[in-house]
């Protein structure tokens, strides 16, 4: 049985996908780019600001599903430029200060809407 998550405080999906889907006690959060939830447009700013916004959007979806950042077990970080890896890590570590999720990170050719970063997550509620 699956549960479709729609978060009021996250930007509307930019295509035919749900914010998140929960099945079998696992929450799959769609890849988030730095869209402003109010305008639905990519925010102004560089990798620092975009990483923050993408992670805030993930947070809004986690919250709407009844989860928190601490429940994230795995994330995927897609960058437009691998040179942004270090700055991304600095911002990322503020959202995941301890017991960090497993992660895979790499640079792709291009991201939707010209974004510099996209982040997806898998969460499982922890005891």
């Amino acid at each position, binding site marked *: *049985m699956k549960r479709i998550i729609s978060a009021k405080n996250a930007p509307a999906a930019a295509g035919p996908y749900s914010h998140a889907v929960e099945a*079998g*006690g*696992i929450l799959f959060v769609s890849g988030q780019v730095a869209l402003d939830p109010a305008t639905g447009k990519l925010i102004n700013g560089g990798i620092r600001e975009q990483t923050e916004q993408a992670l805030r959007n993930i947070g809004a979806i986690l919250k709407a599903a009844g989860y928190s950042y601490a429940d994230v*077990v*795995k*994330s995927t970080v897609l960058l*437009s*430029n*691998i040179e942004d*890896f270090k700055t991304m*890590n600095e911002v*990322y*570590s503020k959202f*995941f200060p301890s*017991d*960090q*999720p*497993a*992660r*895979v*990170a*790499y*640079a*792709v*050719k291009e991201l939707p809407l010209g974004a510099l970063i996209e982040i997806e997550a*898998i969460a*499982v*509620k*922890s*005891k």
Partner: protein
Amino acid sequence: MSRLFVLLIVTAMFFWSCNTVSEKHEASERRIITFENTPASRPYSPAVEAGNMLFVSGQIALDPSTGKLIEGGFEEQTRQTLSNLKAVIERAGYKLEDVVRCTVLLTDINNYTPMNRIYMEFFPSDPPARMAFAVRDLPMGALIEIDAIAVKK
């Protein structure tokens, strides 16, 4: 009247079954898998276990003793990457046979065939589900990165 009664019973049973299902998945034990020499500066764990599922971070061909990318070409990097993946999985008390899914990231799609040949040495039978593709760049200039999800029997 009796039809309405049956409907009520069926509805009640439906919600009761929903409840039992969600209770079963309420929360699971969490275990962070690390090594003595895992750098604290890295904002990710080598692996995270939730219940009987293990989520393994993307591994590249780092030398476990120096933390630096090994010398050598694609084949050496693939072997080192898979051996690092195996080390994390075994550290968590799992086996390569428990891997259900992998993602293989290459920087050059022409390396697909040599990657498969070495990959098969590590997954000789009943190989996991997999997705493989070429990306623009990998961290630290690596040529290959592999992540995995494993489920304990």
